[in-house]
């Protein structure tokens, strides 16, 4: 399908133009969801559970309704019954009943912050006061906060209807068991000279986008609803909201606002159906915006969990066996990314014998949602730490160890079939040859660690339209909300195909009525799949341009060719014609030109990254400072290198936060104690060094431009890389993330005591 991109010379792709939406964003003009306002608009607030696990015995709203300014209150009674089965939505599977129960608790609250009722009033302050007047009677149940607590015999059951694929009709908190096997692990471990077995624990963490969830709902008396919101997937908001509200999809229009970060966390719905319900009850537009505390308590963080991992290698450094048990906290409803974690945990390596058992476990925490390479960072923390340890035992440089065992084109994937062209080894070599890795790290309590990561990336459905304007410029319309600068890439791909400057192309993210179905902005798929649709739509426009030129020249289309933005008649000396020259003649040659394409993209190219970090540890406090960091990642083809680097740097920064300080801290009652940016500590400007990047371009043969996804895999290596660097700095192997000062200090003191003890023993 693809010409090798390395041999192609591009005019626009690979350059670094100013992003088309840039000026609006530096002048404050860009309209994010919370920036929308309409005449007569009301403000909504959500009443949330103070308990982690409780039965709702009664909800009294009459006092609240009497407060002047309060216009309407909704509870789960206002939601239609929903079916208890799995359905596909975009890349996610959805259980309509669980979705409905998460929007507004039905008979039970399942986590601190679980929505119970929503109020619409003339001001946000009045709506807030009204919440205090709603009386809810609870029967408090014991909270189930961890995988261990949820799976021990006699554990309280969260969802009475939940059954899994192994225990028949037994009520359970284990939603699903996945298993992946290859070869014979017993024989594998027999062949191993070194076997490392460790147990890892990671904390639940949040995507930490700066913009809280928001929605403005407008329900018209004719039964048509419009939702303005910041989302990664307008079409998913439409289908999921339709499901929860029992409305036909065609009656809901979703207008995607500018989105202030998502990282996977804005791929589902929370406030959207509430805004429509409240608007229906009041006849006015209703805006809801979450507080930061609500975002942390009640949106979709990524799971913590437990991973037991045993890996063996031969003396000469060949990985021969892996036995892995992993269980993730799905939150209040099934659906953690534990299966993805299981399929990624050793994906970068050729291991002939493995067995991976993975469990999806419900606990009294918010329903988890996608977060950048879902399920994989936790998993890589375990595998990449043990691999570092095996490399050390074998006396092999950790990068060489990875290169020796690394997968390349033709190596079997975890599922068996061979990889197509991939760039894992290249990312390892890029780091090995980087100025950073070649530099010498000196100074006390300093260490250097490396780790690698794998992520599948996704394809899925995208639509695109390319319109040629009457002056020969163009617009490109897609349905993919732009989180990281994707409009720039779409404009660049269009400009490349049409042979015009990027400044002549205006990229648009359209609402759900103005473009064909487009799946969620997730799985690193936009530049790949939507980019593929844009490429095809632009080529469709070119085909039409050729036909029109042929008409004008009274030739057959195959006598006209399109090169570098000019139409050329084959043979005799007809002067070539630019699109600008042809455009005025559209009316008399058949009307406007609109190129179209819709794809359900195949040919996804998986992503790999390798990261090296230098740290300094304060051995008296356990505090870690990251001194230097370099990441190499295979982009396939970087359309706009600055924004590829941006994805690499952003994911790395999130990984470093995950490694050092980010974690959900629940008390023994199951109440979240750090539901703010003060104590949910994402890295500040002062906590990070510059993040050096090396873009590897190993073209993806499945994409016309060689593109792979670049949005996710960068977050995978840092937690393990930091752990490995800490080991080199102070000699302790951390098996719990985050490696916060109290945890690291404890480990250092234990290590010191042991050392003194053994010294005394000699």
């Amino acid at each position, binding site marked *: 399908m693809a010409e090798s991109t390395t041999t192609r010379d591009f005019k626009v792709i690979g350059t670094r133009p100013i992003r088309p939406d840039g000026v609006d964003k530096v002048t404050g003009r860009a309209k994010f969801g919370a920036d929308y306002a309409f005449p007569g608009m009301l403000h909504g607030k959500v009443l949330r559970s103070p308990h982690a696990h409780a039965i709702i015995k009664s909800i009294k709203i009459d006092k609240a309704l009497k407060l002047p300014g309060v216009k309407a209150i909704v509870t789960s009674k206002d939601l239609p019954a929903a079916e208890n089965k*799995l359905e596909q939505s975009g890349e996610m599977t959805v259980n309509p009943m669980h979705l409905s129960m998460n929007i507004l608790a039905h008979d039970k609250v399942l986590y601190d912050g679980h929505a119970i009722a929503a109020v619409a009033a003339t001001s946000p302050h009045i709506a807030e006061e009204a919440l205090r007047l709603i009386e809810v009677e609870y029967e408090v149940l014991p909270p189930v906060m961890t995988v261990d607590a949820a799976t021990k015999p006699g554990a309280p059951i969260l969802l009475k209807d939940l059954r899994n694929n192994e225990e028949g009709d037994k009520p359970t908190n284990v939603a699903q068991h996945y298993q*992946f096997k290859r070869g014979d692990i017993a024989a594998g471990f027999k062949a191993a000279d070194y076997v490392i077995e460790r147990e890892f624990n990671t904390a639940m963490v949040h995507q930490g986008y700066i913009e809280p969830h928001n929605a403005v709902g407008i329900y018209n008396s004719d039964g048509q609803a419009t939702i303005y919101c910041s989302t990664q997937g307008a079409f998913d908001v439409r289908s999921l909201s339709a499901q929860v509200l029992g409305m036909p999809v065609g009656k809901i229009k979703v207008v995607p606002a500018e989105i202030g970060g998502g990282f996977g966390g804005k791929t589902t719905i929370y406030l959207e159906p509430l805004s429509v319900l409240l608007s229906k009850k009041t006849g006015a537009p209703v805006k809801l915006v979450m507080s930061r505390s609500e975002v942390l308590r009640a949106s979709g963080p990524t799971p913590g969990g437990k991973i037991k991992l045993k890996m063996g290698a031969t003396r000469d450094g060949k990985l021969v066996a892996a036995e892995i048990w992993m269980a993730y906290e799905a939150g209040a409803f099934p659906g953690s990314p534990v299966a993805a974690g299981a399929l990624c945990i050793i994906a970068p390596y050729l291991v002939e014998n493995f067995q991976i058992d993975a469990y999806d476990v419900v606990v009294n925490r918010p329903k988890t949602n996608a977060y950048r390479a879902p399920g994989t960072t936790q998993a890589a923390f375990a595998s990449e730490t043990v691999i570092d340890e095996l490399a050390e035992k074998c006396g092999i440089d950790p990068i060489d160890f990875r290169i020796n065992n690394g997968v390349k084109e033709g190596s079997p994937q975890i599922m068996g079939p061979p990889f197509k062209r991939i760039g894992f080894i290249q990312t390892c070599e890029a780091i090995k040859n980087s100025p950073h890795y070649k530099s010498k790290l000196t100074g006390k309590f300093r260490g250097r660690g490396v780790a690698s990561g794998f992520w599948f990336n996704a394809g899925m459905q995208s639509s695109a339209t390319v319109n040629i304007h009457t002056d020969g410029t163009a617009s490109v319309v897609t349905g993919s909300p732009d989180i990281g600068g994707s409009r720039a890439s779409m404009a660049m791909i269009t400009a490349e195909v049409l042979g015009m400057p990027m400044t002549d192309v205006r990229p648009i993210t359209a609402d759900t009525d103005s473009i064909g179905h487009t799946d969620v902005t997730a799985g690193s798929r936009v530049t790949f799949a939507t980019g593929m649709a844009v490429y095809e739509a632009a080529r469709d426009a070119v085909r039409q341009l050729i036909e029109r030129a042929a008409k004008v020249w009274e030739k057959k289309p195959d006598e006209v060719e399109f090169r570098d933005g000019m139409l050329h008649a084959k043979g005799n000396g007809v002067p070539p014609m630019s699109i600008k020259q042809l455009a005025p003649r559209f009316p008399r040659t058949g009307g406007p030109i609109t190129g179209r394409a819709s794809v359900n993209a195949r040919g996804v190219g998986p992503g790999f990254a390798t990261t090296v970090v230098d740290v300094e540890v304060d051995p008296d406090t356990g505090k870690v400072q990251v001194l230097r960091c370099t990441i190499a990642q295979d982009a396939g083809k970087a359309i706009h290198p600055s924004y590829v680097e941006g994805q690499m740097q952003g994911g790395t920064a999130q990984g470093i936060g995950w490694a050092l300080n980010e974690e959900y801290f629940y008390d023994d009652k199951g109440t979240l104690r750090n539901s703010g940016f003060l104590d949910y500590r994402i890295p500040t400007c002062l906590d990070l060094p510059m993040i050096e990047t090396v873009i590897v371009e190993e073209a993806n043969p499945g994409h016309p431009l060689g593109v792979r996804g670049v949005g996710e895999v960068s977050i995978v290596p840092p937690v393990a890389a930091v752990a490995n660097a800490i080991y080199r700095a102070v000699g302790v192997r951390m098996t719990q993330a985050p490696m916060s000062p109290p945890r690291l200090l404890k480990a250092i003191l234990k290590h010191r005591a042991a050392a003194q003890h053994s010294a005394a023993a000699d």
Partner: protein
Amino acid sequence: MPTVVIPALLRKFTGGVERVELPGRSIRELIRQLGERFPGIDKQLLEDGDIRPSIAVSIDGEIATGGVLDTVAENSEVHFIPALGGGEV
């Protein structure tokens, strides 16, 4: 003939058999033939006549998009794997 690789947890239906060669040329045919050879296993893969939402089909190492309608080649290798979630752009 195309090879179907049985997911670890469904091997209880196949008496532990991991790989089966079947003559089918579409996912629909392959699943039907699987069901004939190993009664019950087809119900684990299908819901309302198509692939369960929780399952993805991989043909020759690539996630297929056509559900039961996808066709396979003479030497294709077919895997049934869990549908996965995604994250950023």
